């Protein structure tokens, strides 16, 4: 093992952790990011513990008999957010809905991120023809506005939970691919990559252990923001009637669709799922914003 390789390992261990440690300490002092973090943790806990904290089941009939033609009973001591038009407890549905909305958002953002990550880093690192082909495909995907692309995909696959995940995931692919390619292109020309190549590190090792760790920070910021948009897009598709077709599924966007027609008689049924969407999305946006500031190299050293 040459000296360069030995030291290379040391430098590699130091450099990223320095950046991350510094970013973390800056993040901890950012009250806005902390609020975002609390919101996300709150919703994650609600989703995880739904069966234990929800007062009723998501599809349990708790008072359909009390509903009349003029509407269902509003918020009360027993039903904090009232009863929906099928006689189900709205609060319980919101709590169980956290599972669907967060999970769909998470899976779609993550799948878009991983595929985009692979495509972007291959395109950026390989260059040449591969780069051209991959990026032109991404350009075509970006040419269709996100929501329309998602609508087209759902129309093709049919409505449902996993179809929405695929649709929203696909719209995220070109965003990440483009982001990562740009960042890889910058890193590829750095001196440490040249040095690694000079001492004979294999191409794959250079890409995965030298370029990617340094190119990843904008991706993490974008990932949090993508999670926020994914929740909104999923709710939007649900609102358009493309969500889970089973009306028993308590997805927040789908819950808003029905209310559109009953806005006059039961506005609280519209407000509750809407506020849940806004708060969870806000949480991710706040974290993303805080992360962007914390990871910004221009602001480094100003802890």
């Amino acid at each position, binding site marked *: 093992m040459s000296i360069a390789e030995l030291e290379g390992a040391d430098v590699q261990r130091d450099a990223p952790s320095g950046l991350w440690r510094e970013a973390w300490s800056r993040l901890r002092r950012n009250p806005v990011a902390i609020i975002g973090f609390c919101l996300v943790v709150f919703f994650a806990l609600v989703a995880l513990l739904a069966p234990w904290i929800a007062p009723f089941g998501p599809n349990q009939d708790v008072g359909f008999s009390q509903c009349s033609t003029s509407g269902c009973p509003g918020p009360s001591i027993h039903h904090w957010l009232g009863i929906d038009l099928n006689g189900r407890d709205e609060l319980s549905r919101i709590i169980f809905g956290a599972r669907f909305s967060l999970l769909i958002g998470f899976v779609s953002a993550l799948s878009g991120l991983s595929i985009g990550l692979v495509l972007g880093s291959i395109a950026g690192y390989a260059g040449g023809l591969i780069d051209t082909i991959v990026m*032109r495909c991404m350009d075509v995907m970006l040419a269709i506005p996100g929501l329309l692309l998602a609508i087209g995909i759902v129309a093709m696959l049919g409505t449902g939970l996993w179809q929405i995940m695929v649709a929203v995931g696909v719209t995220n692919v070109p965003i990440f691919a483009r982001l990562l390619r740009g960042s890889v292109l910058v890193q590829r020309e750095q001196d440490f990559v040249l040095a690694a190549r000079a001492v004979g590190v294999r191409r794959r090792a250079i890409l995965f252990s030298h370029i990617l760790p340094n190119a990843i920070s904008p991706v993490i910021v974008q990932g949090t923001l993508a999670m926020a948009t994914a929740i909104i897009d999923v709710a939007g598709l649900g609102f358009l009637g493309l969500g889970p077709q089973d009306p028993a599924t308590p997805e927040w966007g789908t819950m808003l669709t029905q209310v559109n027609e009953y806005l006059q008689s039961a506005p609280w049924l519209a407000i509750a799922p809407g506020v849940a969407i806004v708060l969870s999305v806000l949480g991710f946006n706040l974290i993303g914003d805080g992360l962007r500031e914390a990871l910004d190299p221009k602001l480094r050293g100003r802890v």
Partner: protein
Amino acid sequence: MLRFIVRRLLLLVPILLGLSILVFGWIRALPGSPAQTLLGERATPQLILQVRHQYGLDKPLPIQYWDYLKTVSSGNLGTSITTYRPVTYELQHRFPATVELALGAMIFAIGVGIPLGFFAAKKYGSFFDQSSLVGSLIGISIPIFFLGLILKYIFAVRLHWLPSIGREDILATRAHPTNFYVLDAIIGLDPGGLWDAIRHLILPSIALGSIPLAIVTRITRASVLDVQHEDYVRTARAKGLPPNEVDRRHVLRNALLPISTIIGLQTGLLLSGAVLTEKVFAWPGVGSWLTSAIASRDYPVLQGGILFVAIVFVLVNLVVDISYAIINPRIRLS
């Protein structure tokens, strides 16, 4: 400059070709054969064969694609299978509605966002600044359709200040030569019609404009903060130019550069964001048309509509790029 424009135009060719392949492939990837899709579920095998031949669906794929390209480039985007009207005919009526809505949203976002961002930067760190930041973050986090529902409930259902759906009074019988209702009312010198059209535009524009508003505010603030500390601003101040003049002639003018790109990009996005707003406010634009096409499985409408919106989106981005290059010489030369 000419070279830049030609290069950008040439880059458009592969994107448009890719789009056409995507849309062409999409309708063939739908569940069931295209002929089945066109005819619905109760079609006889005989009829399906006939339609397959009529539409050239029995030819090899590359030839079908070539035929499709020829039809599309001659301006034929297909025919709706529910209304039997050509897609282009519907677009003539619906696209102006969407453009009018998008413009309304953009005017709202720019008219409110630039002053808001500017004063937030001027009062950096103040309560006003902080609340504009928090407000813009909340603005990005609210789904358009939820904001639309809330606005509709407060201002239309509760207060009866503004109409809740449509582009004009349902009982109105006005002629619309251009299909831009505001423009029609101005041309026709009809103040009542103008007021009616604007009243219908307000709520949908605010709902659709919420995200661009948040973004324009943030970018304006950041950009003014950047420019404020430039040397030429200090020089202008040092030579005794009144503060308002400095703001107007040096700070704002230079800060507007990044803002203009954002505005251009957002306008393109608004055309697609309109899908949700149009559904909430029953706005008869391209978005609500596409939504109902999904419900009725009207695939030719979806195919033509999506292709059309994507082309418009690409062209808007092109115009933004070129105009940005005109404003900013550094882009053009690099």
